[in-house]
Each structure stands twice: as structure tokens, then as C-alpha cells.
């Protein structure tokens, strides 16, 4: 099932992965405006074009929707207010993530924006995204080909453990952050939203730009996540994938509970 290795295979793999990266000229520019650094972007080769494909009419519709639903906090010209950050240059991906998962529009101020039922149709989300994307270059909605969960699961799993698991848990069950914030569970999250979260770094999540995790790396991460979630019940019910706390509670309440109930039956006198 396994074999001993002679020379470091890590090196072999590395060199294989390094070359395309090394040849990719990546110039990353961070944009920062008053009211909080909300996003950063990288001029990824995969994305730059799509923003310009937006037709004038969808942009106009997006502007209307924006002014009706978002402008009170983010400002009429996306410039941001005391209550919400500027959206100039956050890119279509950010809008698609925030609105497409129902996090925006925000219902109430809290430690962080929770997932809610989505308030707009797919077309409306797309229109909003295209409108915001016209304000300046930012990460665009990823290409479908990266979202098929058909990459290298082993590479993705390793990158997930290094870059994501400390907040989201190795099985994507989520975890706690400071002051009531939390890293949400990744179960059932659309691949496109996982990808957008990585490139835009919503709320307190750091940004994983394409120099850090290449688009292929991101595809691999999505692949491994989908694999893990599709196979979470190999040994039976996964108990929320929360680890030893859930297991310990289960054993105390149901395991020992059942055994104690049986001891009562065993020692009760027969009628």
C-alpha cells in the first residue's frame, strides 16, 4: 500500500509545481481607501477580460439596484460611509459572494454578516456585480472550469490544511474567531462562493491572491473539500465533524446513557 522513499519526493513535486508559477509575471497592487481595507486584488490573467463584457444595460440595472438597496450604507458612488466600507475596486467576485450568499444587504450590525436567504435573483446579483466592477479593476467571478471539483484532491487537501483548516476545521465544519466572530462551516457552500471568498477575503478572512494560491490551487482546494464532504460518513454518522468534543458528549449521553438504562433493566426485579 505504501513504499519507502529514497530521495525527497517533496522536492520532485515542488519543482513540478513551481515552474508555471515562476514564469507567471504577477504584479499585485493593493488598493486601500478610508473606512477600512476591504479588499485587494491581483491582476490575474484569468479574470481581467470578463468585467468588460458587461453590457451597458445590465450595468444600468445594477446601478439602479445598488442605489435602491445598498447606497444608504455604501454611498451613492460606492465611496463608503461610516457604516460600511467603500466598494470601489472590490470586484464582481466580492459582490457575487456577499449578495449571492445573502450576507448582503446586512440586516443588523453584528460581529459579522451572517448567511441569510438570498434577496435577489441570479440576474440581479450579476447586474449588481457588473455595476460594482465598473468602478475599478477587482477580482472577477471565476471561470466555470475552475469550479468543477475535478482537480488534484491530494494537493488541495494539503493546501486546505495549511491555509484554511485552522479557522474552518479540517472537515470544513467551521470554528470560532475572536469577539463572537466565526469561520463559517463550508458544508454545502457553492464552489463559486468558496473561490470568491478566497480571492476577496470577505470580512476577517484573509485574502488568498493568485500569487499565494494559484487558480489551480484554488480549484484543488474546492476539489478536496467536495470530496471530504461527499465522503464524510465513511465510518457512519459524522457527528458534525466537530472532533473529540462531539465524540465525548455522544459517548456520555448516548453510550453511557444506554448502558445505564440497561443496568436498571438488568437489576430491576422481574414481574
Amino acid at each position, binding site marked *: 500500500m505504501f513504499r519507502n522513499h529514497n530521495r525527497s519526493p517533496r522536492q520532485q513535486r515542488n519543482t513540478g509545481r513551481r515552474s508555471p508559477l515562476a514564469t507567471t509575471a504577477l504584479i499585485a497592487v493593493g488598493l486601500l481607501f478610508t473606512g*477600512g481595507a476591504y479588499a485587494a486584488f491581483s491582476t490575474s490573467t484569468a479574470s481581467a477580460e470578463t468585467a468588460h463584457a458587461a453590457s451597458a444595460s445590465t450595468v444600468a440595472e445594477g446601478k439602479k439596484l445598488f442605489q435602491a438597496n445598498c447606497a444608504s450604507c455604501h454611498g451613492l458612488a460606492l465611496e463608503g460611509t461610516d457604516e460600511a466600507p467603500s466598494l470601489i475596486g472590490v470586484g464582481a467576485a466580492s459582490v457575487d459572494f456577499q449578495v449571492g450568499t445573502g450576507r448582503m444587504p446586512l440586516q443588523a450590525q453584528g460581529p459579522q454578516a451572517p448567511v441569510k436567504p438570498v434577496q435577489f435573483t441570479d440576474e440581479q446579483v450579476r447586474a449588481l456585480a457588473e455595476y460594482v466592477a465598473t468602478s475599478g479593476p477587482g477580482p472577477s467571478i471565476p471561470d466555470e472550469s475552475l469550479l468543477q471539483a475535478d482537480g488534484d484532491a491530494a494537493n488541495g487537501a494539503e493546501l486546505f490544511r495549511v491555509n484554511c483548516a485552522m479557522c474552518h476545521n479540517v472537515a470544513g465544519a467551521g470554528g470560532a*474567531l475572536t469577539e463572537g466572530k466565526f469561520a463559517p462551516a463550508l458544508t454545502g457552500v457553492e464552489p463559486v462562493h468558496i473561490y470568491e471568498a478566497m480571492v476577496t477575503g470577505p470580512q*476577517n478572512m484573509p485574502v488568498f491572491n493568485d500569487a499565494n494560491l494559484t487558480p489551480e490551487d484554488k480549484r484543488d482546494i474546492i476539489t478536496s473539500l467536495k470530496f471530504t464532504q461527499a465522503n464524510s460518513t465513511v465510518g457512519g454518522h459524522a457527528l458534525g465533524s466537530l472532533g473529540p468534543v462531539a465524540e465525548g458528549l455522544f459517548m456520555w449521553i448516548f453510550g453511557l446513557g444506554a448502558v445505564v438504562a440497561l443496568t436498571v433493566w*438488568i437489576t430491576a426485579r422481574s414481574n
Partner: protein
Amino acid sequence: MAQDGNSGTDLAAADSSNHGHGTEHAVGTAVVATDAVPNPGFPPHRPRVTDLDPKKEKRAERTVYTLFYLSAAGSIWAIAAYMMFPIEPENLASVRTNNLFIGLGLALALLALGIGAVHWGKALMHDREGIDMRHPTRGSVETRERAVEIFAEANEESGFGRRSLIRNSLIGALIAFPLPAVVLFRGLAPEGEDANPVNLLQNTMWKKGDRLARDPSGVPIKASDVTIGSVFHVIPEELANLGHSDGYLEEKAKAIVLLMRLNPEELVEDEDKKDWSYDGIVAYSKVCTHVGCPVALYEQQTHHLLCPCHQSQFDVTNHCAVIFGPAARPLPQLPIAVDDEGYLVAQSDFLEPVGPSFWERH
């Protein structure tokens, strides 16, 4: 108020429920009740339905043997499941069914067997309670006297008490003989000039000019790659070339670094550490100063680092000072610079030991 020194002997005679067993035992501050309610003795025996109704008895009998047959069926099912649900390579669904069906078969076998036996015991076996009498745990007076005598005789015959030189040298020998075993355990860890944990803990493999590289690929990182809000999990570029047998994990356990870029205006930096960062890019040891977990959770808006093991929090804007949780020291900072090609490099090793505190640290 109670006093010690009462004896329980008189009680034993007074009431059968009391202690004593006729031997002299102080009752301490226990209240000696002279007016206790008497033990009413055993209640009358109540027969079970299976004792009275032969039909019920028959039914219980049927239940028991049905359960035993069911148990055998469960065992056979488990064997059948082993063959019917083989594990196919790379097919996790087959592992799941294998686990489930063998397990259910065995569970049935075990539960039916157990429940059957207990039901037999409860419903059909003779159900009169029996009584054992207790005896004091201590030996009888004669036994104890004889034991003392034996020791006295042995002492007399061996001269253990009298021949103090022999006795003391024996005790000395017995104390000395396990000591070599303790010494043998020195071999648990390597010996030699550089095999001193105190020295090893002082350094990591970082040295001047080492490129900061992505974990685990070893791809070096350019300053321009690190956009504001991003976080990189970093190892020394050379680490990626180490094999596991060359100490990859041991070096990695000390050398892991977290790289973040903040707005330079948000960084509060000490004068002497001003040049440790590069344009808002800072690098800190990822090993918690509490007990060594990877402090890997970075909140890009609050600039706090959080350790997922014990919830220590560090403020990246303020030299990773501890702001919450059990950690005792700030995370050590790795001084960084940029080389000619734009790659981030270390200016030196960490200037203090990374990770948890230890006795020789100062």
C-alpha cells in the same frame, strides 16, 4: 458534643444492624443510638408471574431461546456481510457498507446473546435472594498473634534486627540496584557535543538571506505578491529541500512563520524594530509561546492572531503582544528585507527562542 474513644462493642450486642463484630473499634464522633428503630427483617417473598403462570414461563423460555438463535443469526450475518460487502479499492462507499453491515451483524449477535442471558436470569432462574455473612477484614486475634510471632521468629533466626551491618548494607544494595536502570534511560535521546536541547532551542534554520517561501511548496515569495489583507504561511526556502530523514519536521516545527501585510500606518513599531518589516509586511513565528500550537488564525480586519488550541490572541499591529488567553510572551518577529530580485528574505534568525517557555530561557 461527641468525643473519641467510645467503643462499639456494646452496640454490636444492642442491635444486629450495628458494626463491631465483637472487636474493639472506636466509633469516633458517631452517635451511639440507644433508641434506634429495630430492623424489621426481610420482607415476604413476592413470586414473579413466571413462577405463578406456566404460560408466562413458557413464553419467557421462548423469548430466551429465540434471542439465542437470533444471536447466532447475527454472527452468521456478520460473516456473510464480510463476504458480500468487500472493500473495493478507492471506493469509500464500499468501506461504509462494509463497516455498517459487519457491525450491525455483530451488534445483533452480541446484544441478543446478552439480553437473552439476562432475561433467562431474571425471568426463569430461581429468584430467592441469598445471604452471606460478613467477617471482620482483620484477621482473628490468634492469626494476628501468630503472624507477629512468625516475624519475631524470622527476625531471631536471621538476626535481621540484631545484625545491623548486614541489614543496612542490604538496604543500601537494594537502593543502589535500580539506579543503573535510570542511567540507561539517558540513551533515549542523542548524545554528543551538539545534542543539547538548550542550545537547539535557541536557534531555527532561518539565517540571513534565506528566502521566505510558501508552505509546503517552497515557492519563494515576492514582496509584491503579498497584498494588503493577505496572509502567507511561510517556511524557509531551503526547508522544502530537506527530506524527512534530514530533520524536515523538526526544523519546520521551529521555523514556521506567518507573513502578513498591513497598512504601514496601522503598525505600531518599536524604534529598534522599525527595519524588521518591509512596507507593512511583517513576519512572525507561527509557534505559540504558550505550548506550541500553530498560531495560524489571522483576522485581516482586526489584525489579531488567534491560537485555535487555547485561544491566546496576539496583536499584529503591536509586535504581536498577548491581548487575551494564556500565552505569556509576544510571538517572536522575524526581521525581513527584500533582495535584488524582489523576494522577501530573512535578515537573520529570530533573535530569541521561538515557541513555549522553558526553564533555561532568559
